[in-house]
């Protein structure tokens, strides 16, 4: 009986141990996938007619470019200071009895804007508000009309009527107004039109038309507080004073950050550095520095015989939409200075030192400086030359953040290859390498391409390059697939060389069509 019991217990225990002790091996399988990864085209024609490139009659490209290096914010040029005007009005006789609806004050006053050496005759408000506070010391309501006689919009003088409750001298009735001044032109020449920086204000006060007769003395003060704040102007006439704009700007061309080696050769350069004055005021411009620094920290300063000199800039001509800015041009070509080496330095950082002085000789316009809404003060770069660029091992490198998540225990890349198919009509060939980088951007694995992009050859009539098709393969062996687990970035390095180094013409059909696909063996494990 006892033996039977033991057998039963051992049997149950054996089943339990088997059940708990069993652990299955992983089940693995692979599947083959072909997937598109990148499909894109780089077309030169996308840059034609967008003020970068144009096409010559022989289908070659012309670099016809206008780029603004910087543009000075002219809202700072003439700035109406925040102004508060407090005025009081009273009757001109000792006392009076006011019947209902009787106008008993009608006075104009002039107020000075506190400019420094600026004398303005006229200005237009682009944006801004006026805040008005009125105090009424008599016991009945008063009807106040505030006018600014020189402030006009669409032929209408600025005017507003407000009824203010009655009060006492100690505790006057108060009315507050906030009114928009945008689009109003201010005539600052005063009542007689021969002064400047003046703002006229007029107030009429009428007793309550429906109120009782009320007594008033010349001790009752009707006060007005006018506050002008944050007024921006887009038109001004007068003398703007002597103003100096001066700075050294750093311009970063991120497009060229990818260059890490090699050289280019450019031919037939023609480039203008232009200082533009869109203000009707005399000025002087000076370029003190224009230098380029490349990936290798090599700096080349551009030379010009007039750099460092203060050169006169005439006032702009005509007015409003017909305004014609004056220009100060620093011209460069292959034969002047060192433009070729400046360009071939392939700088990604440029420093420009400049100064522009308005009215260097004082009020020579007799108070007739004019700023229009379309006035600009800027420095431009203009080019007009054939695009003849040779490349000699020009190496571009860029890094993309990609997490392949190849540490996935369920599914991961075991091996495969990336196939890059290209159709090229650029006169440049390229060798391409991929680098797998970890999160610290350290190289885990270098994958060199089998094959390369060949430069395109010209057609018989020398009007285009013939498309050439290539296929490159990047083998992802098991070691590379293993590295994908830690890969957080992929760095692509392409080394470009042209068939010709000199006078290497690029035609309007230049394009590079890319199709990157993956032929991958995916391993699943469960």
């Amino acid at each position, binding site marked *: 009986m006892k033996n*039977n019991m033991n057998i*039963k217990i051992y*049997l*149950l225990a*054996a*089943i339990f141990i*088997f*059940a708990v*002790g*069993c652990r*299955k*091996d*992983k*089940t*693995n*399988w*692979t*599947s*083959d*996938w*072909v*997937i*598109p*990864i*990148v*499909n*894109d085209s*780089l077309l030169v024609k996308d840059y034609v007619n967008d003020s970068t490139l144009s096409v010559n009659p022989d289908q070659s490209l012309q670099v016809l470019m206008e780029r603004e290096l910087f543009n000075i914010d002219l809202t700072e040029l003439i700035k109406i200071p925040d102004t508060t005007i407090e005025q009081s009005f009273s009757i001109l006789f000792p006392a009076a009895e006011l019947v209902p609806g009787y106008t008993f004050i009608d006075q104009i006053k002039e107020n000075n804007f506190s400019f420094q050496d600026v004398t303005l005759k006229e200005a237009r408000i682009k944006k801004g508000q006026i805040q008005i506070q009125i105090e009424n010391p008599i016991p009945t309501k008063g009807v106040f009309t505030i006018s600014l006689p020189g402030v006009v919009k669409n032929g209408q003088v600025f005017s507003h009527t407000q009824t203010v409750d009655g009060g006492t001298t100690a505790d006057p009735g108060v009315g507050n107004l906030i009114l928009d001044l945008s689009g109003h032109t201010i005539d600052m020449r005063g009542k007689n039109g021969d002064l400047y920086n003046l703002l006229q204000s007029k107030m009429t006060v009428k007793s309550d038309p429906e109120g009782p007769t009320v007594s008033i003395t010349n001790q009752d003060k009707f006060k007005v507080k006018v506050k002008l704040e944050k007024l921006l102007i887009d038109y001004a006439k007068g003398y703007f004073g002597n103003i100096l704009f001066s700075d050294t700007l750093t311009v970063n061309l991120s497009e060229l950050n990818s260059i890490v080696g090699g050289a280019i050769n450019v031919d037939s350069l023609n480039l203008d550095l232009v200082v533009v004055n869109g203000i009707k005021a005399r000025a002087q411009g000076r370029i003190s520095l224009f230098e380029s620094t490349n990936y290798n920290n090599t700096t080349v300063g551009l030379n010009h015989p007039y750099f460092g000199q203060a050169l006169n800039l005439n006032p702009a001509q005509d007015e409003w939409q017909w305004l014609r800015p004056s220009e100060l041009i620093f011209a460069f070509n292959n034969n002047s200075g060192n433009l070729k080496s400046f360009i071939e330095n392939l700088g990604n950082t440029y420093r420009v030192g400049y100064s522009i002085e308005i009215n260097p000789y004082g009020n020579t316009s007799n108070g007739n400086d004019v700023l229009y809404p379309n006035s600009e003060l800027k420095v431009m770069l203009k080019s007009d030359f054939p695009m003849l660029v040779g490349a000699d091992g020009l190496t571009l490198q*860029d890094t*993309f*953040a*990609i997490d392949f998540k190849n540490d996935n225990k369920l599914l991961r890349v075991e091996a495969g290859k990336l196939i890059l198919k290209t159709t090229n009509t650029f006169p440049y060939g390229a060798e391409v390498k991929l680098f797998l980088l970890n999160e610290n951007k350290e190289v885990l694995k270098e994958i060199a391409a089998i094959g390369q992009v060949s430069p395109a050859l010209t057609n018989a009539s020398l009007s285009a390059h013939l498309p050439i098709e290539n296929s490159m393969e990047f083998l992802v062996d098991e070691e590379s697939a293993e590295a994908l687990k830690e890969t957080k970035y992929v760095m692509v390095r392409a080394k470009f060389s042209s068939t010709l180094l000199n006078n290497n013409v690029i035609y309007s059909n230049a394009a590079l069509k*890319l*199709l*990157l*696909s993956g032929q991958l063996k*995916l391993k*699943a494990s*469960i």
Partner: protein
Amino acid sequence: MIFYRIKITVLFVAIFAQGNVQGQDLLPVLYDTTLANHQVSIVGNVFQHSTGLNNNFSRKFIFGGEINDELSQKTFGNQNDYNRVGFAVHAGAEYRASHKIFDSKPNWSWMINVANEMHFSGEYSDDFFGLMFVGNTPFFGNNASLANVSGRFDHFLSIGGGIHDRKTKSFLTLNMILPQQFFQMNINRGGMTFSEIGDQVDLRIEGEAMIANSHAYFKGLGAALNFGFNIPFNTSDAFNGIINITGRNIGAYQVHNADFITVDAEQSFSGFALNDLLNNDGLSSFKDSLNISETSRSGFKVLPGFLQVGKIVTTNSTKVLQSFFGVRMYTNSVYRPLVYAGIHYQPLERFSFGAQGSFGGYGNFRLGFYANYNTEKILIGLGTEDLLGAISGNQYGHSAIIRLAWKI
């Protein structure tokens, strides 16, 4: 490895064999006409069955190992437009008391039972299998259909108690269901079309998935009934016996705070543009275009309940040969009604064996075999519902059954 396989095989047999104690639900169900005293029984079964996955393939999932390209291709070739697959593991124990609990019903007593169950059911297209195990190269220039692909996996504990009739062996228990894992996915509409060289993929997919992801050990709560009723019939002297109606896990449970994911996308993809990669927003904008939404929600789920109705055999019969037959269902949409019929042979008082054929369920025809041995106190049964599947790699399922009972 060999030892491991032996161990797995023994485990299968150990867990899935069956004996002659009432309440079992796998073939054959044996009816013991003696009055029961205290009784402890352990029952287990595991099966895997499909319409298109042969055993050479499915054993890689049971025992582990490498599915090579040749096996993947061959199995892919065996798939039909529509395929089913399922597997289940059931391990349970119960105690039946002999104490009378109602004076008016002297044969009624109480019982308790506990079980751990796993159940998976799935349906899929041959194209879905191809994409999973072969890749997309067979579909270049064609469409791979992903429609009507679904799968569901439940893993839960069942603990409960109730009453049983010591004479008829009928019983009824009410059980608490404690789900441990739950996963369900459906692709309602879907397909992937590949260009001739694979440089363009057109994807259309509308589907949803629900995954129990609560931090709690039990992912929800539910209730279910287990029952078994034995009804004698006597149409003639030549044909009489017992009709057995068995139900297990007839109920439902609530899954708490499950991840609910829906996708509704129609996307044509031929590669990223360079600007997408330069701006590092290619993958994120591609994901956005798939309209994937993830929410947390609770859901009410009907259990994969077991139902079986059929004529059973009696252990105390004077007949050496007895027939048994019936029909079985699981309460899910993938399982097809399984019909079965077999012969039970009892040459000795303590030993019996038999065989049966069945058709339906998660696959097609299967042939089963079993053997029972019983003493006065111990009952041991071993068997399989898929005899050919146990020995042949070209069959489409596995099955093993064990049942041990100890009459105290």
